[in-house]
């Protein structure tokens, strides 16, 4: 391996080069697959737990949930999510009674994309809660959209029809209006806009109020059927 010589030492053969790379790749692949498999259960459990916590925050009173995928024109219970499919989450209370949907949405905020989850009760057409899942808004200003507990709390019992409107602080008049945050107008209005846009996408896909997919209590094995 030392640089050599004035005598022409031929370099390693191409086979040797390819073999070295192949072996390196093989060992690397084994190591990576190993770590992936061994951490997969923990990672999946973490993700599921985070989702549950978010859903329970935006739908007060629920203790059980399931994923509902919009597939072939209707909302079905399904654990798997296809590549271009979209899903919401159904929240149910202790007895299995439907409480509301938790709907994820995202869109441009002030600095970058804001991702959120909001709870929706179809019978009363009310937003029950909102939780910001990811944001890169300005610290100290825009980040109030998740740090200001009072503002986040004002998303409970918010009428969604007609669309939610963010108004100047203190001038809230109708049930579909919400105060914008002073100093974070754009971020807070972005949150409202994201909810409105997401909702207009989903309102046609959700079934008629009262005929939501029931909770499948047993281990879900793929699609559930609606009654």
């Amino acid at each position, binding site marked *: *391996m030392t640089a050599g010589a004035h005598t022409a030492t031929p*370099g390693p053969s191409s086979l040797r*080069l390819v073999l070295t790379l192949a072996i390196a790749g093989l060992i690397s692949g084994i190591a*990576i697959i190993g770590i992936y498999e061994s951490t997969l259960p923990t990672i999946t459990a973490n993700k599921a737990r985070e989702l549950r916590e978010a859903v329970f925050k935006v739908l007060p009173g629920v203790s059980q949930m399931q994923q509902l995928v919009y597939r072939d024109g209707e909302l079905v219970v399904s654990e798997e999510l296809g590549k271009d499919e979209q899903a919401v989450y159904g929240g149910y209370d202790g007895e299995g009674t439907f409480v509301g949907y938790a709907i994820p949405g995202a869109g441009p905020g002030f600095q970058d994309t804001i991702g959120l989850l909001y709870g929706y009760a179809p019978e009363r057409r009310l937003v029950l809660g909102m939780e910001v899942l990811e944001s890169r808004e300005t*610290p100290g200003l825009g980040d109030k959209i998740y740090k200001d507990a009072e503002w986040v709390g004002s998303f409970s019992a918010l009428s969604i029809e007609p669309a939610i409107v963010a108004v100047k602080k203190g001038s809230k008049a109708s049930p579909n209006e919400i105060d914008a945050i002073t100093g974070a107008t754009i971020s807070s209005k972005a949150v409202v806009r994201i909810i409105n846009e997401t909702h207009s996408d989903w309102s046609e896909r959700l079934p008629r109020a009262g005929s939501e997919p029931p909770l499948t209590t047993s281990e879900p094995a793929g699609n559930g059927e609606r009654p």
Partner: protein
Amino acid sequence: MKKSESYDELIKGIWRDNPVFVQVLGMCPMLAVTNSAINAVAMGMATFFVLVGSSFLVSSFRDWIPKQVRISCFIIIIATFVTVADYTLLAIVPKVHKELGAFIPLIVANCMILGRQEAFSSRYPVRLAVMDAIGMAGGFLLALFSLGAIREILGDGALFGVSLFGENFEPWVIMILPPGGFLTLGVILLFFNWFKLKKDEFLADVAEAERGG
């Protein structure tokens, strides 16, 4: 002789040849993840793991890796360690992993790690290589921590999430934003320059004193 040699390799990375402050390597992840002390430390530990692990393997196999494909081999080894670190962090501390985000895989592109393999680990025996790696990674961790601590204290009034000053402290928000990263590192480098200038001046004075008598 051997003992002081390896000791020297160890500590040179911490101050004299600090990868960030002196060699100015490994910049990319530095500034992005140092908006808080905990993020900085997590990134420093991940890099530590990758650097030491890679150096160990590269040095162990240095006689078997042909010169022509050495860079590719180094990158494969480094990428493997990074992927391992990525999944491990995701499983153990998902919150920190979320904050660091895409910058964990970007450890692969950290010129410091590749640079060490090329310049050192591939040419020296295992013990020296590992000492060097520990020193460099330690220096890196120290640098990250100082940057993260300064930015968090000034920009958030806290360290590791623990609020240091009272309610009335108005945080210097820009410090935890991107410009703060650039400026803080720039000022720290300024201090290093100042040190160096002073030291050179001092040495020059001493030399002159010895000559002049």
